[in-house]
């Protein structure tokens, strides 16, 4: 083997083969890392419409047929919207199995009697990751309204699309 060829082989082993071995090690280590619970997708929402309708800002949502939450997840944070309901800009966070989101009603939603501009709703729920399909139970409450009793709800995650990047 010539000097040039030997140098090439050494460089190739060090710069290509050793990193590939390192890659195998990284993939092995990565198996033990836990990612947040998946909440991405559409959740069929079940709640008492009468209880929800009695809340400020609750009537518009209570009037929505087939209520569904749409969650677009990015790790521990997510964007939440209502599939058939009023437009709402909402960011939320996931802390273990606890899901928290703050909902800011859009201008048209805020026109609902008793809602008012600048009012916010809070959604807190606990996810049951072991149930199939996944479920969550929680409360929807109105901020700055201690006298308003929160509306309780539960929701089931719709089946994930077939192309999900699973295990």
């Amino acid at each position, binding site marked *: 083997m010539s000097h*040039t*060829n030997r140098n*090439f082989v050494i*460089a*190739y082993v060090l*710069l*290509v083969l050793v*990193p*590939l071995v*390192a*890659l195998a090690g*990284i*993939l092995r*280590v*990565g*198996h033990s*890392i*836990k*990612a*947040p*619970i*998946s*909440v*991405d997708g559409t959740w069929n929402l079940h709640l008492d419409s009468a209880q929800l309708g009695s809340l400020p800002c609750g009537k518009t949502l209570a009037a929505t047929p087939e209520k569904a939450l749409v969650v*677009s*997840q*990015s*790790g*521990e*944070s997510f*964007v939440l919207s209502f599939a058939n309901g009023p437009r709402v800009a909402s*960011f939320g966070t996931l802390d273990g199995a606890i899901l928290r989101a703050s909902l800011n009603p859009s201008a048209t939603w805020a026109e609902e009697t008793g809602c008012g501009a600048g009012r916010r709703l809070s959604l807190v729920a606990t996810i049951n*990751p072991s149930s199939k399909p996944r479920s969550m139970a929680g409360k929807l409450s109105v901020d700055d309204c201690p006298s308003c009793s929160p509306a309780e709800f539960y929701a089931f995650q719709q089946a*994930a*699309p*077939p*192309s*999900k*990047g*699973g*295990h």
Partner: protein
Amino acid sequence: MPDLLTLVLQIAVILAVCRLVGSLFRTFHQPRVVGEMFAGILLGPSLLGWIAPQFSAYLFPSSSLGFLNALSQVGVVIFMFLVGLGINPKELKHQSHAAVLTSHVSITAPFVLAALLALYLYPKLSDDSVSFTNFALFMGAAMSITAFPVLARILSERDLLSSRLGTVAIACAAVDDVTGWCILAYIVVLIRAAHQATSIWITLGGILLFAVAMIYGVRFLLRGFERTFRKHGEISENLMALMLLLALASALCTQRLGIHLLFGSFLMGAIMPKEAKFVRYVLDRFETITITLLLPLFFAFTGLRTNIGLVKGPQMWTYCLLIIFVATIGKLGGSMAAARLSGMPLREAAGLGTLMNTRGLMELVILNIGLDIKVISPALFSMMVLMALFTTFMTTPVLELICPDRLLRRDPTRAEQQGVSLEGLALKTSDGSAA
């Protein structure tokens, strides 16, 4: 039925904005593609949807996006056929040790660094429906890709295709793209197989059989196109239509086999005859409509999926900067180090690293596949789009800074014999800018 008025209005606005921003970027000596990628983001929720949400909802109602996506996908299928057409396997053979080492390191370095970064990002930007292996492999594939057409065009514009830097860069980019797409195909198969009744081995066997049939069977039949071109100096419209049909049929086969449309069209392009004049002729016929009409739709569709608002707060921006840093260090640094170790002068090695760091449209294609199969989250998608924009944007000014033309053109190696055959590689737009 699509709302035709909405669709036509969307296409008109997208074309106008892309041409305008693309031209603006040309004045900064940037490839038009960078401007068009940027225009797509401007039309999405990151700008238009943010400053004029009602107009954005009127122009791009969610019910209409399926049609826009379908049109843009047709464009990307044809574009990938053209990318495959531009890759000449002969360029990959008989490469010097420098080219072999550099091309392999330019894949492994960003791949391993991306996997290392995945250890940190997986618990923060992914969820438990995606396995770490899939996440890390996808990050690796996405970071190790090079925008072969953009790179070829930059070299062509600077008259560097026949320089040592140019030939090594072209060979490395071709190796990177072929390898990157193979890895991506494997990841897509892994992910889809998990949700299908068919065994992964049957899927992989089917893909292998298809690839063998294409390379050792169909490839020889395709020589008829080149023979006709040599004989008549042109190809009839019927034959051009047949070529397109074959690309679409191949795309459908790979989609049916469980990977993606784009792999089939890329493979069909890759096995087409590679005589330079023939390649240039076919590119000229297809690229005008693809690059001026269909690809801007893809940029707009990508922009509509990119929400920079999801990169919220200092923590998320830190992740984004980390991604850009790792992508640049892995690709630019890795290629540069390997080229330097192979004996390339420092400036040229740095120039090669800079060129290899160009990701452009190819990155967007891969990222869209990743988002479709949900192996990356919307926020990570947005960060990776920013990375693609940044690394493509930096190429021209950095190359000019560290590797001025006057120094590179002195290199005499391989100029004559390589110069002609490489001319056909670069995709271009009607005004000659890079795709």
